[in-house]
């Protein structure tokens, strides 16, 4: 699947464990042979299906931190990022209203829409070819996660020496 928001020539990372990040919902997903053949099972590349509860809370905290009322329909940064170029299926926006009915409706609708939508490949008008998909993953994956023991002492962030 081609991500219309990924700039042409952009390279996606593949971790040592074989995971990459969905460019839409940002979840880690199993990388296919190439970025173009990598499919997100969580959002089908549309960025949908976010946590209703988490989205509600994030929006509430953001609204309060900005001095608004607790029910203000404010997007969190991820919601803002994802809302570009997609239909208004993001549960965060509607659930910020705090309506139980709205939540139920959004959950049902969001799940249905996301799971049944066909794969979308953007094709420019007038017959121009679609953007070139990324053809490979970055070959220098990020470091593995470091061990962090209980009892709280994070491995030291060493000063430059």
């Amino acid at each position, binding site marked *: 699947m081609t991500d219309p928001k990924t700039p042409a020539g952009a390279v996606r*990372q593949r*971790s*040592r*464990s*074989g*995971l990459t*990040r969905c460019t839409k*919902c*940002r*979840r*880690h997903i*199993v990388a296919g042979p190439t970025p173009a053949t990598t499919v997100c*099972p969580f959002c089908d590349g549309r960025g949908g*299906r*976010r*946590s*209703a*509860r*988490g*989205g*509600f*809370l*994030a929006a*509430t*905290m*953001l609204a*309060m*931190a900005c001095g608004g009322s*607790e*029910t203000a329909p404010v997007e*969190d*940064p*991820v919601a803002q990022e994802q809302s570009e170029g997609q239909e208004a299926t993001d549960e965060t926006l509607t659930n910020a209203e*705090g*309506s*139980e009915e709205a*939540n*139920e409706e959004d*959950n049902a609708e969001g*799940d249905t829409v996301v799971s049944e939508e066909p794969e979308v490949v953007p094709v420019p008008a007038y017959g121009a070819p679609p953007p070139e998909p990324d053809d490979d993953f970055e070959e220098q*994956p*990020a*470091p*593995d*996660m*470091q*061990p*962090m*023991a*209980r*009892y*709280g*002492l*994070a*491995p*030291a*962030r*060493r000063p430059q020496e």
Partner: protein
Amino acid sequence: MERSAVRIEAPNELVRGQGQGVRYAVWEITLACDLGCRHCGSRAGKARPRELSTEECLKVVADLAVMEVQEVTLIGGEAYLREDWDQIAKAIGDAGMYCGITTGGRGFDDARLKRAIDAGVRVISVSLDGLRETHNAQRGTRDAFDNALATARRVAASPIQLAVNTQINRLSMVELVGLSELLIELGVKAWQLQLTVPMGRAADRADLLLQPYDLLDLFPLLDWIKREKLTPNGIDMFPGNNIGYFGEYEERLRYGGAAGTHWSGCKAGDGCIGIESDGAVKACPSLPTKQYTGGSALEGDVGDIVRDSPQINAIPKRSRDDLWGFCKTCYYGDVCKAGCNWTAHVLMGRPGNNPYCIHRALEHEAQGLREVLVRTKAAPGEPFDHGAFKTVTEPLEPKTDAAILGVPVESILQLRPSDLSLRSDHTKRLRLI
């Protein structure tokens, strides 16, 4: 690009690929403690009947150096209650390893701080589990918070780097914003957070524990704190091994997540080991002693024990075949391997199925469900012991109130370090347990 004004976190030089050997050791040098923490996994208080002598400790230091361990954290009990604690710390530094200390801070006075500086200790992490009342209720003394705070200020004014660690549970979760304000005041560089799990004394207080569905509130809260409070003030957030896994928060909360680092399975025995004060060597300091001790440093070389003991080296070799329950069928099972083995084991009686998982909570939420932990067996009352829990799946009511654990979000966001506690009713109840 939009974050150019702030420092971008990057994993430190300790990072190596998997299977490249132990680089981090957490060493309980005594079980003696001057606090009586309600959630203490080792039920610390009195020293073990047979703890390593100074000579034996120096032999362990030599063993660790041969293994090319890079960093050693001294813990207790309370490490400074051993007379020779700074001698051990100095030996660690002299051997080329990086030495840190984790402390409750009750007695870390000027004299002890000077000894730490002279010994070459590089980092001191002070435990703070909430604001005054909440912290004191969990730590078991009325002066715990003030003393910890004094220690933190002392360390901040010294050449030693200051870190803070915090247990997240039903008492502290709603005070994390207030705590983050305190960290900013203190000049803390690193904040490690971890979920309280039912080991040791915490196993006796199931009402202290978060329910798995509470993670649906915790993760957005941590995300907000990191973004709004910590990052702009140069504080690194280190979610502990039992905070995860995957989902949209992985890249935002995991240390190094923005650079692509993600949870890649429990590091117990593969990158990290734990040593108890009697010499018992485990894959992780938190794992139950009985099932996970690979050998004793009194009887052999620590490196040999790690290499040859299945109790230690079998953990990194686990695969999806070793998982069960939800985790066995999980999309991330091959990489995640059910998260933190310690957490899974003490909750469910054996590793391989971990209900403390945001992805799992989100998957249940998507079906209108939640998991609830119910205790089925009490802990026997020994160091590093545990009882047993089962999960019950039930309908999840939609969230319609702006509250976390019953506390209005507005109150949570307005909490300041000078406030005593948000949940004085709750802390009083805890004292009665």
